[in-house]
């Protein structure tokens, strides 16, 4: 019986090829759009997702705009449970044109990279970088985008730290996995500090953030409290948080946009659900006589429900499968095209599952009303209504 019903479902799907094709096309577009929007949301959270639970970020309690004194480093380093401390400053320079955006950080070279094993740099390049105060390391994507090679001079126009800056590219890092941002640019914090000493002496020897590697990730809350307590009532009070919380605080600034994207992604599903439900209602209405005939012969309500639900699910899942299949090349294209905005634009493992669940939901919901009507259809009424 199951085999017969499956065969009938399959044949019914192709009774109106154009109608089925157009409905499936709608589902393909909806599922692809749903997946793409979810990937966009994931891309927003990529920084937070890639962050380590064993690293703390310490910043000025008032704002990231305000720096912290460099000497805090020694005091933080002395705390029990702290493995190492590094520091960084946001540079925000322009490469030739404003549209050529990529994140740039002044970092302490000896402590920073050991703390970030996800940035994989060939040892000889790392050594060359460490030895050259004007040296820089850049991510693979940015190097490829601008055609940079090791040894190239990279000119940047400072915005936060005004002036014309020039760096020598000493290394190109690769991400340890697909979720590592390969667009960042790093140079020596000492290089920055020397210039600041000269042009803005009172801003010298100050850093944007401290990065604290922990011996044990579970000590993060206690150590955060300890660090902040240590600098309470000082001229630069601190706010310590896990790297994830730090990243999420940036995401929170654009939470409204994310909410809109998520609402739109679900609205697309609701719209296609209505379209599919209309198609199935129309289909089931055309086949009332057939359902009545089957029931007259002795088929029961659940057989008729299986026919309608099966057809609805088959169309929606087929459309969903194609939509998910198309999502990958489309996401790759979007990721490449908008690499500046989304350095990590990867379809997560959850997205195809969510998309498949949505496709199944579309099929089930669309079948509900016609299946219920067909199940409650009185055989005599089924014949009477149509002559």
């Amino acid at each position, binding site marked *: *019986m199951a085999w017969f019903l499956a065969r*009938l479902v399959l044949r*019914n799907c192709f*009774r109106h090829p154009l109608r089925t094709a157009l409905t499936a096309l709608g589902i393909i577009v909806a599922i692809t759009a749903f997946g793409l929007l979810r990937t966009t949301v994931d891309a927003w959270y990529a920084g937070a997702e890639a962050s380590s639970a064993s690293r703390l970020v310490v910043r000025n309690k008032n704002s990231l705009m305000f720096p912290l004194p460099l000497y805090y480093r020694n005091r933080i380093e002395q705390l029990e449970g702290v493995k190492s401390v590094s520091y960084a400053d946001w540079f925000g320079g322009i490469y030739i044109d404003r549209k050529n955006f990529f994140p740039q950080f002044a970092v302490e070279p000896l402590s920073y990279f050991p703390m970030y094993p996800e940035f994989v740099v060939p040892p000889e390049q790392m050594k060359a970088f460490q030895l050259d105060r004007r040296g820089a390391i850049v991510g693979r994507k940015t190097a490829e985008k601008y055609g940079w090679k090791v040894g190239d001079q990279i000119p940047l126009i400072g915005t936060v730290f005004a002036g014309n800056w020039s760096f020598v590219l000493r290394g190109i890092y690769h991400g340890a996995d697909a979720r590592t941002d390969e667009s960042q640019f790093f140079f020596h914090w000492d290089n920055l500090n020397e210039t600041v000493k000269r042009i803005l002496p009172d801003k010298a020897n100050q850093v944007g953030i401290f990065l604290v590697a922990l011996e044990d990730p579970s000590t993060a809350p206690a150590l955060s409290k300890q660090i902040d307590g240590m600098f309470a009532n000082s001229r630069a009070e601190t706010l310590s948080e896990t790297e994830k919380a730090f990243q999420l605080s940036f995401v929170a600034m654009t939470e409204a946009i994310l909410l809109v994207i998520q609402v739109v992604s679900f609205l697309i599903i609701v719209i296609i659900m209505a379209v599919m439900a209309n198609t199935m209602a129309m289909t089931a209405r055309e086949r009332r006589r*057939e359902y009545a*005939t*089957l029931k007259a012969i*002795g*088929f*029961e309500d659940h057989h008729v429900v299986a026919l309608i639900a099966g057809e609805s699910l088959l169309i929606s899942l087929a459309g969903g499968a194609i939509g998910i299949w198309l999502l990958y090349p489309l996401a790759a294209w979007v990721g490449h095209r908008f690499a500046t905005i989304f350095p990590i634009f990867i379809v997560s493992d959850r997205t195809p599952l969510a998309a498949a669940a949505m496709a199944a939901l579309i099929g089930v919901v669309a079948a509900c009303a016609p299946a219920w009507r067909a199940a409650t259809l009185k055989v005599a009424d089924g014949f009477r209504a149509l002559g």
Partner: protein
Amino acid sequence: MAVAEPPIVEIVGLAKSYRRGDQVVPVLQDINLSMTRGEFVALMGPSGSGKSTLLNLIAGIDTPDRGRLAIEGVDITGLSEGELARWRAEHVGFIFQFYNLMPVLSAFENVELPLLLTRLDRRRRREHVQLVLELVGLADRADHYPSQLSGGQQQRVAIARALVSDPTIIVADEPTGDLDRQSAREILDLMESLNERLAKTIIMVTHDHLAAERAHVVRHLDKGVLTDRIERPRARATG
């Protein structure tokens, strides 16, 4: 003796009405009818007289308001929807005016439908289907789809589908109503042959006097009441 044979269909005091808005419209009133095994009964009457309603009640696809309706001694008025479906699968073969074949199934598959509800395996089902297709003269059209068959051939497939599970009764609602005269005659010949050769009990609703002439008994319905009964001799020459 045929008279002493227990009735295969026994209807006593059957009534049915429909609700149209606030109004209750009586369709059948105090129907009493009895059929014996192998009988061929034609129900005639003007449109709206309740013929199809009575046929639907006998076939178990509609339920009466009151009265007793027993098929082979089983009162089907008390059966639930599920029980009725299973009962129909076993006891009733349907022939419709518009054939009601599944357009996406071949003739063979359409005939096989009722057997899918039985415990017969695939091989036995195939044997049964081939047998009835031969009986209706369509063995060579088994793979054809309804759209590839004429109206008369489609009705033959429908008759094969009605026969295949060897039901207790065959109900036919205007079986020749959608056919040309030649095809109608062939279908009636076939039904008459089934009745005579296989002793199938047939109850047929028709407007057509020529069709009714093939039946042993013609009952007239008028405004929901069975009126006269005309009996015809059983043995008839076909063709």
